[in-house]
């Protein structure tokens, strides 16, 4: 299951950071506006709420500018949030 292990989704992570709405995607890839979590270490992960609409999520919009703690899984470039709460 070598390939499977490489691709498998890890355990839930708890991450803290600030919710930002702004350019996302870095230099070499397309930078576009998204809601993302900027962690204390400077890591940026696109924020998606499990069960939320990834194209327009009013719940995430309300969190923009706030510091939060997120429990969820990291898949590629996004953090799939199961729980979001205040720090």
């Amino acid at each position, binding site marked *: 299951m*070598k390939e*499977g292990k490489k691709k*498998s989704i890890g355990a839930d992570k708890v991450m803290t950071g600030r919710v930002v709405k702004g350019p*996302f995607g870095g230099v070499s*890839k*397309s930078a576009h506006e998204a809601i993302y979590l900027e962690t204390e270490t400077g890591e940026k992960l696109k924020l998606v709420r499990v069960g939320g609409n990834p*194209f327009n999520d009013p719940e995430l919009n309300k969190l923009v500018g706030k510091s939060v703690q997120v429990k969820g*899984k990291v898949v590629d470039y*996004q953090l799939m949030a199961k729980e979001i709460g205040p720090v």
Partner: protein
Amino acid sequence: MSVKLIISSKKNLQYKYGTKLSQVEAALGKMVKADKARKIDTRIVYVDDAASCKAAGIKKVPNMGQAACKKAVDDLFAKHMPAYTMLLGCHDVFPLQDIDNPAEDEDFTVPSDLPYACDAPYSRSISAFTGPGRVVGRLPDLPGKQKTPAYILTVLTNAMEHKPVSANVYHKYFAVSAQVWRKSTEMTLRTLFSDSKALVLSPKAKETTDATYTKAQLKPSLHFYNCHGANTDPNYYGQRGSNNYPVALNSGNLIGNITKGTVAAAECCYGAQLYDAAPLGVGQAVCYNYLGEGAIAFVGSSTIAYGPADSNALADLITQYYVRSILKGASSGRAFLEARQQFLTDSGPQLDPYELKTLAQFYLLGDPSVQPAIDEDVMTTKIMAMNTISNSRAALFSKGMSLKQNLQPSHKAKRFVKSSLDKEMQDVLNAVNFGTPDQEFLYGVDEMSGVSGLQKKLMGQDARYRAFIKHKEGAPFETKVLVVKEGKDKLLGWRLYERR
């Protein structure tokens, strides 16, 4: 008799199903018998099992990595010349091949089955795989360790039990389009079915509620989607304006509502992504529920896909060509190979980065030997002329080789050079109301050897592409890409794409 190879990994199947693997093997035995009745000689090859490899005449793979599995498939093709290659299991059983993303978006790589369809050695570069000539499909199981083999047994049974029906059955369609792409989808449907009356728009008007469909609505045997999709998401989404993205389809809506033998094609971003739903706590992917509920073939994308809003290109074309071949009576595998080849023929001779990504990202999920429909018109002409499967495969393989020789894939330029055609370029940006681009990228085109001066001139050997990218403020997924082709001293053409 035609040869069909079922290629998989015994160790990975054993890991997932334990002692219940015997049930899967029993089902595969039934498939071999059922295929024999269809005059198909089916052989099962586990590339990581010494005895199985010896029987198939190849070396056991040293590991189940992508390079080793690509070589195993190539060796098997050279040895057996199969009419159909069926990869059994999802990517954690038999790997998808990671292609470096040629386009500018957030996908790091493009998981693909295209390399298995090409007579070229392992590579991560899409440039190596512009000559598909083999019929390949993947019958996926669910990712991760499974308590029961129920899903894989179901999809194997669905494939075995299907008997080709009149193409008229597949002329009845169920189609959903994001409202903003209505024109493009109508164009596709009119090309395929001569009308677009049954098209469902998402949203229909201004409503923001999620769509659900009845069993009667989902009854047609041909399903087509031109909607948004998202990474590891069980929904497809519609769009009206910049803020209304209602659910156009939830995968749960398919449970108990799909007609056996359904064929589906989806243009959506991530429309056929094989993600592991359980640990994420999300619903099963749409493609999984289609196949699990009785569909026999699903064509879709692993990653972010593109197409225009008001015309047909990229995702529109590859899915459209696939359905067209199905309606003409092709097996699902041949239909998809023909779609890939037609897409390349129409897009070439030079291929822009978004055409290359489209080629890599779409794959066929299903047994490639299953023939959904019989076209009675074709049956009639067979009395006058006949083409054996082996002759058809030889022609398709040869066409693949020819495409490889004659196509020029683009690649990102090492050094960005500003265009000397500033005014003309601005005219194009103005003509399509593009606004000020957020980003601009330059792509060169691989030189082709053995080309005469006139041919070189006609083909625009010195051509290069400029991709302008524009993200609409406040609408993170509304991305437009304008690809302009320029020659030494003139613009050669342009295309406007939107992210699906």
